[in-house]
């Protein structure tokens, strides 16, 4: 099996002593950071004593950025520099961004849309990184130490572009991503562990901008996702937009003539009215537009529910589809966990209850449950679990992955709802005599035509030896890792000529761009931070050298003499790094040692897994 890995520049094994890991829910409306402290998961509050951080960033002319409640307070006054709901633009092009109707000045850019602000055209990745950086700082302040890593949650229905963008944002914020975790799965962990739940459960997750529904089977410490469905462009924001359209129609005002500030103000007022209607039967909506005209109405719950109905129906369609994919009927579902602030709407709760024939489970705070589940998973991944407190998470990919074939048709390679990690290969051949190159186009989606799916990457396999048509055997391998991220290789097999290509999907930021942004932040960092980085790198050099020595002792027989010599040489350099003062030199020594031991580590791991699997069989026989 020919597999590969997208290389991770700058990423290195985590230190072994410190084990602080957090879960981060990077939401459309609000973001949270949580951690397991004294074996209980809890949301970490900001200096203001509030658990939620509104996912809002205001960029000021002097180069500073304000994040959270303070940014939110100014959004109607400074709409184009105050970015809210940025999650809706992650990994999206300009057309999709415009289709959300969000009041921004969008700028076209290769791969991903940019937002025009007083600080220039910003990528959604950069705005998200700003939010993540604030949460990281919050965690380090509260926990009093550096983090080994974070689990970042994403909507289950996020495609590869959106996941990649999220991971890029985390890296840009200086976070080591232990795992991208699907939001409904995170909620299931929090709920399942809390209630020792067993059986089939559904998670209905309606957030500010995205909707997910996942069907899981919970059995003795295994969380197995059977099917997932959703819509990454459907959330509470859309209910607000429906209210705005209604209000404007009532007032006889044409939306086309509104300013950015008007549109933002209307959305804020609509959201307040919608939230009020959770408890009240009517809510006022009032706003004076910049030109003096007034929008004023009293919205009844019945009116709102009529406006909401088409949106609610779309979520029910997704739920039915997920059930069908799972091969289950609504009655098979034991409980429905409600996640996301938008599930507070009575119209949503009622519809979900009717579909599944059971009262939705609302005992966990729908705003916090995802972050809490992510914190539990982060703690597990960091290796902090107590004996007996262990679980296994088996998640799936939400959308099928395939290749373009003749006539613009999609050949499916990995179907949706496949358990990850997954690797699968498909063979193709040449269609012309003497053909020496083949272009490979990777797409994601459920439709038959390439034009209706999302294009993830294109690359060319060159150097195929000339043969008659149909003689070449080109094996294309898709690999999806536990984060749901894809890599693809192609190889011509019949002649033994290897022409493998690794692609990183062609959207978002390139590795160079990220490296550039990180270098910039390092340059700007104060001397304290530089000293800390040097210390960190030295600790890392020491720990890596120690673990390599232990590994040599245990499995040195796996190395040939020349390989061993190279490792010893790099070990000596890592030892010497203790006395260096240049961060980059220390980093280089660490990287050289980990590169020199990469094959060795892989062979050891393979040996240990084979041993573990062999041991299992002996146990069973006994």
């Amino acid at each position, binding site marked *: 099996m020919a*597999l590969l890995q997208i*290389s991770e520049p700058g990423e290195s094994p985590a230190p072994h002593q410190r084990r602080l890991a957090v879960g981060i829910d990077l939401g459309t409306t609000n973001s949270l950071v949580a951690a397991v402290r004294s074996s209980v998961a809890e949301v970490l509050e900001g200096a203001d004593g509030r658990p939620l951080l509104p996912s809002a960033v205001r960029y000021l002319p002097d180069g500073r950025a304000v994040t959270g409640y303070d940014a939110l307070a100014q959004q109607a006054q400074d709409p184009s520099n105050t970015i809210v709901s940025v999650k809706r633009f992650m990994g999206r092009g300009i057309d999709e961004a415009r289709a959300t109707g969000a009041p921004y000045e969008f700028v076209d850019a290769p791969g991903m849309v940019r937002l025009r602000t007083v600080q220039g055209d910003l990528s959604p990745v950069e705005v998200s990184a700003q939010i993540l950086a604030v949460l990281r700082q919050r965690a380090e302040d509260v926990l009093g130490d550096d983090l080994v890593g974070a689990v970042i949650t994403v909507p289950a229905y996020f495609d590869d572009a959106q996941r990649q963008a999220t991971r890029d944002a985390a890296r840009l914020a200086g976070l080591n991503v*232990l795992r991208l975790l699907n939001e409904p799965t995170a909620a299931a962990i929090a709920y399942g562990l809390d209630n020792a739940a067993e059986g089939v459960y559904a998670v209905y997750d309606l957030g500010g901008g995205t909707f997910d529904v996942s069907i899981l089977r919970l059995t003795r410490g295994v969380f197995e996702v059977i099917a997932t469905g959703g819509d990454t462009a459907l959330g509470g924001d859309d209910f607000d937009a429906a209210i705005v359209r209604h209000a404007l129609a009532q007032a006889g005002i044409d939306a086309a003539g509104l300013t950015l500030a008007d549109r933002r103000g209307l959305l804020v007022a609509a959201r307040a009215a919608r939230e009020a209607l959770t408890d009240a039967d009517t809510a006022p909506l009032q706003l004076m537009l910049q030109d003096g005209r007034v929008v004023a109405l009293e919205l009844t719950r019945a009116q709102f529910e009529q406006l909401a109905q088409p949106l609610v129906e779309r979520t029910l369609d997704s739920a*039915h589809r997920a059930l069908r994919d799972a091969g289950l009927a609504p009655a098979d579902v034991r409980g429905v966990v409600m996640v996301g602030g938008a599930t507070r709407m009575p119209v949503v709760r009622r519809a979900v209850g009717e579909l599944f024939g059971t009262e939705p489970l609302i005992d966990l705070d729908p705003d916090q449950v995802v972050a809490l589940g992510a914190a539990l998973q982060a703690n597990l991944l960091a290796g902090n679990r107590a004996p007996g407190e262990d679980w296994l998470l088996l998640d799936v990919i939400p959308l099928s992955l395939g290749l373009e074939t003749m006539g613009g048709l999609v050949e499916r390679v990995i179907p949706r709802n496949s358990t990850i990690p997954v690797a699968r290969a498909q063979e193709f051949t040449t269609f012309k005599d003497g053909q020496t190159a083949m272009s490979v186009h990777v797409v994601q989606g459920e439709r038959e035509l390439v034009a209706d799916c999302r294009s993830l990457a294109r690359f060319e396999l060159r150097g195929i030896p000339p043969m008659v048509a149909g003689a070449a055997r080109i094996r294309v391998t898709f690999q999806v890792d536990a984060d749901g991220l894809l890599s693809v290789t192609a190889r011509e097999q019949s002649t033994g000529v290897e022409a493998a290509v690794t692609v990183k999907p062609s959207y978002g930021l390139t590795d160079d761009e990220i490296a550039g942004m990180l270098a910039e932040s390092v340059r700007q960092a104060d001397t304290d931070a530089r000293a800390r980085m040097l210390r960190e790198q030295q600790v890392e050099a020491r720990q890596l050298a120690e673990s390599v020595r232990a590994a040599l002792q245990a499995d040195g027989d796996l190395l040939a003499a020349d390989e061993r010599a190279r490792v010893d040489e790099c070990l000596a350099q890592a030892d010497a790094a203790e006395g260096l003062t240049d961060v980059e030199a220390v980093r280089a020594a660490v990287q050289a040692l980990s590169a020199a031991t990469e094959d060795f580590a892989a062979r050891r791991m*393979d040996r240990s897994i084979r041993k573990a699997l062999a041991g299992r069989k002996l146990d069973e026989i006994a």
Partner: protein
Amino acid sequence: MADDHFSLFGLPARFDLDTAALERAWRDVAARVHPDRYATASPAERRVAMQWAARANEAYRQLRDPLLRARYLCEQAGVDLQTESNTAMDPAFLMQQMEWREMLDDARQDPAAVARLQAELDQAREQMRGTLAELLDERRDPAQAGLKVREWMFIERLAEELAAARPLR
């Protein structure tokens, strides 16, 4: 060791498989090799874990589904199911196939026809399971089993089309 799907899970290479034992074995292997176990390990170690986990998931997928399991057993025995030249089918099955196609056309308008076809396909599927258990496990005739597998593939394709023709709710 563990070079084929069955031995990876420590199970006998049979068509008639204890699916509960398969599921237990998969979870056990998955728990040992899952990348979550190695989240803070080096990139090389994480990559190896991921490869093993992907292998375990793929093996489970192929063994869990009876049709894929039969295909796998045939392929392991050296029977090439892809051979386009080998399109010969039992004439009786070809007749049956045409009948079902007509029923599928009717089913697009008539809910009762949907139920009728569904029942027939379910029955055909059950028969296939019995036939293949006999061919693969008792008579050990993978070549004959290969022919039946191709008929079964047709039945499943039809079942998929039928499912797609049904309304969501």
